[in-house]
């Protein structure tokens, strides 16, 4: 294993390895990244994925809202603005269930290291910000396997919001949380919506054993830390190429 992975020497200050690992029914492992838009999570997961790919590990990458299953419904709902907090949430749960049952679970049982860009915590944070009951949401997603590691990328609201607003000519209706009627100004609505989501994420750090990652740290330094945490918490040799 050491011959495949570059040496890392970094001391983790906040020792994020305390949480006891839940018992698994499968030989695979599940690593997820979470955080608001613009927190840098996708970039970091991409780099982690590249590192593992180059090393020849048995991995699979999956992202939120990617299956063709609910695309037409989501498009129909979004175009005509028909989605309520409840149907918005259920539609995404259906999409996730499809991915979970046909992709994530078989891969975990088949001994893969599964990397997920966003997971059920996205729904907990975002749908609760829309007014869904947190209790109802927890039940809705209770079929999902608990991740081995959840990296939570946290960037100050202004930093994250500026990253998104600067890169996009126009924020979409639901993305900006316009359905909540917070503000008629999209940028303003987006900011308030993201703030609510951020607060919901923060509340899950302890309850859901998030590994807190500072999104303002230099990309390569943060990646180094991410690789260190992964090596500490997941037995990577299980996923290494056989010689």
């Amino acid at each position: 294993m050491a011959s495949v992975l570059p040496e890392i020497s970094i001391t983790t200050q906040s020792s994020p390895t305390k949480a006891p690992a839940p018992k698994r029914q499968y030989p695979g492992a599940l690593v997820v990244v979470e955080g608001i838009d613009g927190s840098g999570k996708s970039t970091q997961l991409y780099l982690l994925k590249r590192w593992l790919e180059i090393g020849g590990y048995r991995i699979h990458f999956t992202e939120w809202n990617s299956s063709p299953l609910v695309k037409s419904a989501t498009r129909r709902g979004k175009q005509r603005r028909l989605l309520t907090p409840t149907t918005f949430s259920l539609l995404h749960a259906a999409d996730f269930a499809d991915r979970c049952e046909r992709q994530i679970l078989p891969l975990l049982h088949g001994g893969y290291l599964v990397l997920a860009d966003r997971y059920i915590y996205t729904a907990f944070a975002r749908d609760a910000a829309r007014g869904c009951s947190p209790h109802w949401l927890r039940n809705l997603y209770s079929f999902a396997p608990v991740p081995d590691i959840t990296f939570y990328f946290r960037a100050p609201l202004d930093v994250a919001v500026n990253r998104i607003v600067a890169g996009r000519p126009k924020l979409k209706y639901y993305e900006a949380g316009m359905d909540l009627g917070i503000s008629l100004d999209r940028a303003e609505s987006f900011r308030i919506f993201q703030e609510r989501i951020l607060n919901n994420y923060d509340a899950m750090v302890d309850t859901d054993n998030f590994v807190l990652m500072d999104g303002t740290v230099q990309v390569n330094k943060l990646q180094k830390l991410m690789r260190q945490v992964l090596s500490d918490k997941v037995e990577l040799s299980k996923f290494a190429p056989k010689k």
Partner: protein
Amino acid sequence: MTSIPKNMASPNSKNGSPAKNSKKDKKKSGQSEVPSRFYGVPLPGVKLEELSGTLFVLEGTDGSGRSTQISLLTEWLESEGFAVQTMGLRRSFLVAEDIDTLLAENSVTPMTLALMYGTDFFDQLERRILPALRSGLIVLADRYIYTLIARSAVRGIGRDYLHGIYEMALRPDLTFWLNVKPEIAFDREFKKSQTISYWESGRDMSLSNDLFQSFIRYQSLIRREFDYLSQRHGFIEVDGEESVSEVNRVLRKQIAAALGIRSMHYKPSHALAHLWR
């Protein structure tokens, strides 16, 4: 209104067998509590005092005669001066088509299908049924959350999980269960379309290669779930094997009492006369 036990279990509680749960429920229903119009947390943004309409639900397996009765009841209520709105499965604007596609492909997993049906249900409830109830209409539901719970439960999804999804659904004023033996249901369904479909015979569950056996076993499983749900939610059980006119008389009697309709006289119009057997 009948007394409907308020005993929606918390989604986190243990999944019991139907028999075990029904015992527990009987104990609970002894407490005289005014049932809420929701099973659990209400839907976001709904004010109960605004809902002046009435919701009647007809449940039962395939071939139990629900649709026939809904047509007749609609005509009767309209002739009595009540405005009627109907709902059913796969009738939402949002996802009805998508569910049709999934069912045609029959490669969908039970959990995904359950949640798509959930979306279909809440889209109708929030955008069509609640507005109708706010306007004081009578809503007749051709199936409700109970069929959705039963179908998923026989496919291995936890009953409490399913009740948790629908805890924000509106509790019907009355729920009628048209109870029919699977053999009778088979005859009716076969007569209707000269064949038995993949889903109504539960072929995804690999119960039998013989289509008749598969249908009977599947519908028996569903019927058993209804039996459990009936106790849990206080259904009014109606013998669906009786003639159409007799079943209709029983339904009208209950609905007339709930709405304060005095006259029980009803004869179907020429357009619906063919249903009156």
